């Protein structure tokens, strides 16, 4: 087991793009080697050691590497981008694109995650013990697919466009979701335990379950009886008919 602890020296106002912070890059590396890895700080590159205090305990493979991030990293973007295994624990709010494109491993965020957490994620797990923001599990602008696999759990609320263009995987939101969750999704499943507005527009495939109130249901869904999930009976809708969709939308 290897544990790498990064503690932010001083809160940054200019964003740091830290797409190199992941277990893949840290595994079996020493404190000095990790400290020398580059991140973008505004329009210049700096080393991790310049912005974080680095502590390393042990040396192991990617699967057995855990990265713990302390300090206020609410202006540090792209942590865990493209990680394939191992674990990241962030004890703070975190900036955009956390866990984007990840294929495996687990990220735990003990705070709020800014927009695009888990965007284009293909595998692994993200747990946000706080609120998410816009485009949780969403896609890059113009792409046909956002999240394709893995699981995102948000214990708090999220804002608009949850799971936008999602093609696979699973998202669970314990609180409320903003406007248009599951917009243009083409697979995967979304569970919203709280309330939301205008779900599943242009949905082609996949499942969305809304346990709270679904406001402004779109007229382009066809009601198709009921379905029981975990002992609860939901009204079942199929659509989005406008997009020849075969998706399933379950609401109370």
């Amino acid at each position, binding site marked *: 087991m290897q544990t790498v602890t990064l503690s932010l020296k001083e809160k940054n106002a200019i964003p740091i793009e830290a797409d190199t912070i992941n277990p893949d890059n840290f595994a079996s590396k020493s404190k000095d080697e990790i400290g020398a890895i580059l991140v973008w700080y505004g329009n210049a590159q700096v080393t991790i050691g310049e912005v974080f205090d680095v502590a390393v305990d042990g040396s192991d493979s990617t699967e057995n590497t855990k990265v713990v991030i302390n300090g206020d990293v609410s202006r540090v973007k792209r942590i865990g981008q493209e990680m394939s295994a191992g674990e990241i624990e962030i004890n703070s709010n975190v900036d955009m694109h956390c866990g984007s494109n990840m294929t495996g491993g687990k990220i735990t965020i003990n705070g709020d995650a800014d927009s695009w957490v888990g965007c284009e994620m293909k595998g692994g797990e993200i747990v946000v013990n706080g609120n998410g923001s816009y485009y949780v599990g969403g896609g*890059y*602008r*113009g*792409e046909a697919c956002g999240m394709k696999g893995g699981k995102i759990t948000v214990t708090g609320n999220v804002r608009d466009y949850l799971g936008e263009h999602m093609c696979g995987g699973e998202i669970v939101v314990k609180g409320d979701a903003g406007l248009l969750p599951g917009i243009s999704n083409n697979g995967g499943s979304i569970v919203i335990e709280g309330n939301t507005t205008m779900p599943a527009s242009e949905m*082609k495939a996949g499942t969305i379950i809304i346990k709270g109130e679904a406001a402004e249901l779109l007229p382009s869904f066809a009601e198709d009886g009921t379905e029981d999930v975990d002992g609860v009976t939901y009204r079942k809708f199929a659509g989005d008919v406008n*997009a*020849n969709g075969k998706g399933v939308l379950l609401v109370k």
Partner: protein
Amino acid sequence: MSELLIKNAVVCDPINNVNCEKMDISVKDGKIVESVSSGAKVIDAGGKLTMAGGVDGHTHCAGKINVGRFMSPHDMRMTNVPGLSGKEAPTATTRAQVGYNTPNAFAIGYRYAKLGYTTIGEAAIPIIGARHTHEEFEAIPILDKFGLTLFGSNWQVMEYIRDDEPEKLAAYVAWGLKASRGYGIKIVNPGGGEAWGWGKNVSGLDDPVPNFDVTPAQIIMGLAEANEKLNLPHSIHLHCNNLGKPGNYETTIASMKLLENLKSNRDRQVLHVTHVQFNAYGGTSWRDFESAAPQVSDYINSTDHMTFDLGQAIFGPAMTMTADGPVEYANSRMLNAKWSNMDVELEDASGVVPITYSPKNFVNAVQWAIGLELALLVDDPWKVMFTTDSPNGGSFVNYPEAYTYLMSAKRRAEVIEGFPEMALGRMNIPGIDREIDLYELAIMTRAMQSKIYCMDTKGHLGVGADADIAIYDLKPDSVDTTVEYAAVKKAFSGAAYTIKSGEVVVKDGEIAMTPEGRTYWVNAKMPQATVDAMQVDVAKKFKKYYSVSQSNYMVEDEYLPHPVEITTEAV
């Protein structure tokens, strides 16, 4: 200025009947000359294949391609063709590059140059959008450019044809070319662009355009006659009616036949039909869709009045963009894809829709075959221009890959292996064993363009030609292009040298320098009295209908810092 001597080049120069023969090429002041002094810089081609710089006579490189860019921000990340797509950071010589189907303007220049192309023709300029087109032309480095101006659904054109005013029509076309600094007449789905303004389309050559009482056949004939009256260097450039519809080959052949008896004073065709792949469809619906390339090819083989280009489909993502508004609506519904639609005031329609051609989709597989069948079944390569209608059939960076389809039956057989069984019965390509050689490839990619656009300094390496030269890392003496297609593709993907106006712009597949290219346009002269009479009518159009005034409409000299003006006198 500088002198350059290219030694030991194995030259394929069909215009001058040079069939891959070893020779030296002398260059002085950007032109090919008989000989140079002993002080000339020397490039030893070492027996490598040498051709004139390529000429892409039908590509979408400026103007409408921007709508494609807006619609596909993710296109910049696409890396489908390594080295010729995706993001590339700026270097000391090059600016930042992004994209695949809709690359940025710089990337268009660099990548065409890497393929050994030195001249490109934008396939559709709406006059009202021409200022922007020329601004983009200026941003495309290295290459010489020209553009074809849209006239096929233009109100003034249709009114003059309806009112039987051929002189005024010719004067209007000349004025439109000057207003847009265009090179020739483009006709897209004649009448269909106007009908689309009413949510309709024209169904064929004899279906009248709503409110104008003219038919597509009359529009084609009227503009073709005006084209010959003005002695333009290119013939009319026709995108036929009913594009993309099963069974459309009958309309295509009928459109070709319309002009059989038209004569030109110039030594060229009177009709160029573009991206015929999309117009050589048999069957009555997508269920019984099949190739009609044999019927179309048979007709083309029987006549000498026309040329065409392929519009070859390339598997993978592409971006359709055309003035054919109703086709793009149909595409967007069928593909359930994003759709951009634009009304071009009094001039035409426009649409953009992304598409992905898949070898597993039987329609796409047959489309792929149709393009190749047209190239291989038409006997005379001087009638065939190689294009993908980039990026409609696929991005131009796939040209080297597509060359291998034309040059190797073995390569074709490999691709066909992945096709669904149903597709094989709908195409003829498995039974075609013709393999294009390097000489024929040179015809289809540069030499025939010299003739069809009457560009006598382009597309060949004779004395007096522009010193636009491509040297590819391929030895014609020893390579078997029917088998070694990987080597063919590699060589054409990054020229050993691309020389533009005598300067080495690409070396070993990398950009060496980025001079500005020129823009060719045609200034066709008509008698002043006719011009004045026409101007009265045009002024009314601006007063009543256009959203801009005429003074803010014309492309001014400032928009063409590197112009090449070609003047013609009307007969």
